[in-house]
Structure formats: C-alpha cells, structure tokens
C-alpha cells in the first residue's frame, strides 16, 4: 500500500524542495519505489535540485490535460532506478490544475509506488490546495525563526481542517552554536509552539548548498545533513532512530577529527 506524503511549510525558502529531494533519494536508497511530484507549477525547482532538468519533455500539466501518458512524463533518476520525478510545468500557473485532477493523477500512481512525495509550493493558495488534496500525511518543514514558525502554525491548522492528521515536523537549518548562545530557538522551543511530533532536525550544513547547486542530493552520505535526512527516511519507514548529535562537526576539533576518520 502506498503512502502519499506532502512536504509543505507555508513560508518560502525554508527547504521544502531540498527536503523532498533528499527524502526521496533516501527512501529510494532504502529500497523503496518512490515518485516525487513537483506541484510548484510555474516555479519548478525540484528537477534542478535533482539534476534532471535536461531530461524534461512532458510535465504534470501535460499528463493532466492528456497530452501524454503518465509513463512518458515520469523521469527516472540517474542514480536510483526505483526513483522517479514528475516535473511541473514552467510555462503555466497554478490554476492549470485543480485538486480533483491531482487526486485522479495520484490514484493512477498509487499502485505503482511505495511512496509518493509531493513538493508543495509556498503559500496557501491553489498550489497548496492541489498539493494537499490527495495526501495521507504531511511533513512540515520549518526553520527556527519566528516568521517560519508562524506560517507553519497556520499550515498545520489548514491541514487539520482538510482531514490530514498525521503531521510531522522537520526543523531545518539548525545552528547549535547559536542555540547554545541563546540566539536561536532550540528544537524543544519549536515543538513547544507547534505541538506536533518531530520527525527530524537538519543542521545548517554547507554541504547542502553544494549538493543542491550540483543537483546531487546527499541523503545517506557522511555529511551531517545527509545523515539527518537518512534518519528522517528511516523514521518514515517506522524505525526508531535516536536523534543525532547535531553539534558533532560544528566545532573546530570535530572537523579535525573528521579528517582523520
């Protein structure tokens, strides 16, 4: 039975697309068949982060409008053969698709895949409504900033109003040194405000920036963020994984230690 997961945040720029790419890659690495759907029509990004931009011929809107078959639009990942991407259209806008059409599209994919990940656009308008229409559960991405948390709170309310009750939190771009100094909210502070279950915390890691720019997701590699995303994937599968120590390599000595590993 497949599970449809929407990755959303409300606020833009907190890491929805990066998280989708890495969780999709991580789940594929764990042997699951996964399809990622970019629902950000008009401002697509997931294909760039996955490094698959040059393979796009057909897109989500083409499938919905019947210009092509589903199989023609799905792009197989270059690293994992059980990972697929359904890219979004760049020359259209969110109104090109409605929630009913999204539901139908996802029903078509359900029998083929273990996990269907929906990369949600920022905002709470049509694009958001499309993305959550067929979702079974949601992952909320937020950074430890007041503005991002405000938006996340609003999103959680909207998800609950739309009968999505399995909602988990990803705290992204955490800087433990700042938390320690008291300049940044800690994971506990964020959970306190949002009152939903945490599924993972991802440290602010420059490897993510490099990976995103190169179109090579780093889930499962040795970097801190890569490990953090892999842990999230395992928790999605139901494994109990303790929260990793995010401080590990933020210190100078840890970096030295890593060199000798």
């Amino acid at each position: 039975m497949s599970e449809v997961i929407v990755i959303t945040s409300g606020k833009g720029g907190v890491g929805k697309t990066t998280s989708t790419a890495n969780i999709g890659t991580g789940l594929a690495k764990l042997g699951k068949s996964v399809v990622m759907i970019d629902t950000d029509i008009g401002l697509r990004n997931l294909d760039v982060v996955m490094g698959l931009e040059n393979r796009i011929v057909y897109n989500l809107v083409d499938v919905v409008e019947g210009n092509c078959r589903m199989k023609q639009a799905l792009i197989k990942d270059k690293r994992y053969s059980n990972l697929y991407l359904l890219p979004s259209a760049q020359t259209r806008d969110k109104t090109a698709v409605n929630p009913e059409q999204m539901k139908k599209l996802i029903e078509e994919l359900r029998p083929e895949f273990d996990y269907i990940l929906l990369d949600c656009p920022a905002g709470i308008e049509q694009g958001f409504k499309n993305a959550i229409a067929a979702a079974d559960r949601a992952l909320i991405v937020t950074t430890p900033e007041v503005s991002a948390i405000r938006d996340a709170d609003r999103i959680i309310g909207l998800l609950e109003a739309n009968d999505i009750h399995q909602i988990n939190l990803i705290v992204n771009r955490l800087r433990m040194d700042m938390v320690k100094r008291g300049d940044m909210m800690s994971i506990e502070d964020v959970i306190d405000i949002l009152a939903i279950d945490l599924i993972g915390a991802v440290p602010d890691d420059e490897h993510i920036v490099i990976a995103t720019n190169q179109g090579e997701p780093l889930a499962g590699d040795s970097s801190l963020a890569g490990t953090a995303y892999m842990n999230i994937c395992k928790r999605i599968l139901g494994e109990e994984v303790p929260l990793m120590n995010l401080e590990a390599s933020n210190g100078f000595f840890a970096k030295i230690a890593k060199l000798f590993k």
Partner: protein
Amino acid sequence: MSNQSVVIKSNKQGLIVVLDEKTDWESLKRDVAEKFHASAKFFGNAQMALCFQGRRLSFAEEQELVETISANCQIQVVCIVDENEATENAMRQALERQRQKEEGDLMNLQDGRFYKGTLRSGQVLESETSIVILGDVNPGARVVSKGNVIVLGTLKGNVYVGASGNESAFVAALSMDPMQIRIGDVIARSSDSQPAKSLRKKKTEDTPKIAFVEDGNIYIEPITKEVLNDINL
C-alpha cells in the same frame, strides 16, 4: 462487330465505364461481361476504382454490374466512385491548397523575424518563421520555430527548430549551452557529466556554434566555413 453500348476508359485511379443509355439492361450486362472478359488478360488482377458514366444506375444495378465484372476478369474493384464534377473539383482544389501550403512553408524557412530581449524561465517564443534573438535564452525558457533560430547571446534553455518536421533546420548561438535541442523529430539533451564546475561564471573561450542534424543525430560544431558550406537553406 464492335458494339458501342459499353466503352471502357481509364484514368490515373481506375476505370471509367461509359454505358449507353438506350440499350436495354440485359444486353448491356452481356456487353459489359464480353468487354471485360476480352480484356481480362490486359487488366490482370490490378486493384482499381470504378466509375460508371452515361447512365443512371440504381444501387442494385451497380452491384449487378460489379458482380458481372468480377465474374469475367481478375481485377479487384476497390470502390465505386460517383461521377461528380463538383467532388472532382473539390479534390483538385484541396490538392492545390496543400501544394501552396508547402510552398508557403518553404517561404517561412527563408523568412525571418527579430526578437530583442532576454527570454527568461517560463517564457515561450513561438514563430512560423525563422528567428534571430538579440539576447540570451535562459534555462527554462523555450524557443519554437518552424524555421531556424539564431541566438546572438547565450543559449541555455530549450530550443525546437524545424517544428513542422524539417530536419534541415539549424540552431546557432554565440554561446551554446542548451538544456535541450530539438530539430525536426530529433532530440538531444545536455550531458550530465559536468566536470566539477565551479558555480562562478566560467569564462571559457566560448566560440559561436551551430547545431544541425546529420544521419539522425544532432551535432554541435564551431561555426567554420566548412560547416556553413554544408548548410542548406
């Protein structure tokens, strides 16, 4: 004694059987049988369309004649064409229109237009004629032309030339780094193996290049005299 009640003529598509109006039905049928029997060898087992002229026939009579013909020779009657000048004219006109359209397409390949400005992600420029773009084509932008496309700038997006299926169309750009190129029905995409490029603007010696189809593959070559000599407009 040659009888003139039945005359067989032929045109490009098949046979026209001219029937005499006054001869009575039974002897006419017999004459048809005789005529076709006599020419059976000549017709062989060719497939042809039949057209009856000179006499108004009911459907049943038409069937009878076709049966008579089939019984007396090996030709395969594909269809029976109504003798009608109007349809014939319509067909001729349609053919001529098609021919004119093809000539028009040829004109489009020779014609061109200019576009000034940078095409950004999500923008699409479509044209019946060739296009010269004074600016860049960014990733996510798309140019579609039935003719050729020349970019006086950097081509980083998608481009589709010869959109009506013309594989002799070409794409030229001062700096060629496209996501996808489609010429007629041939598609090529950029390679994945980008050798650990730094994100900073790499200032390489960008030479103007041209993309064209040869043996079903898209080639991208620096613009030289030899390459230009091979381009057919």
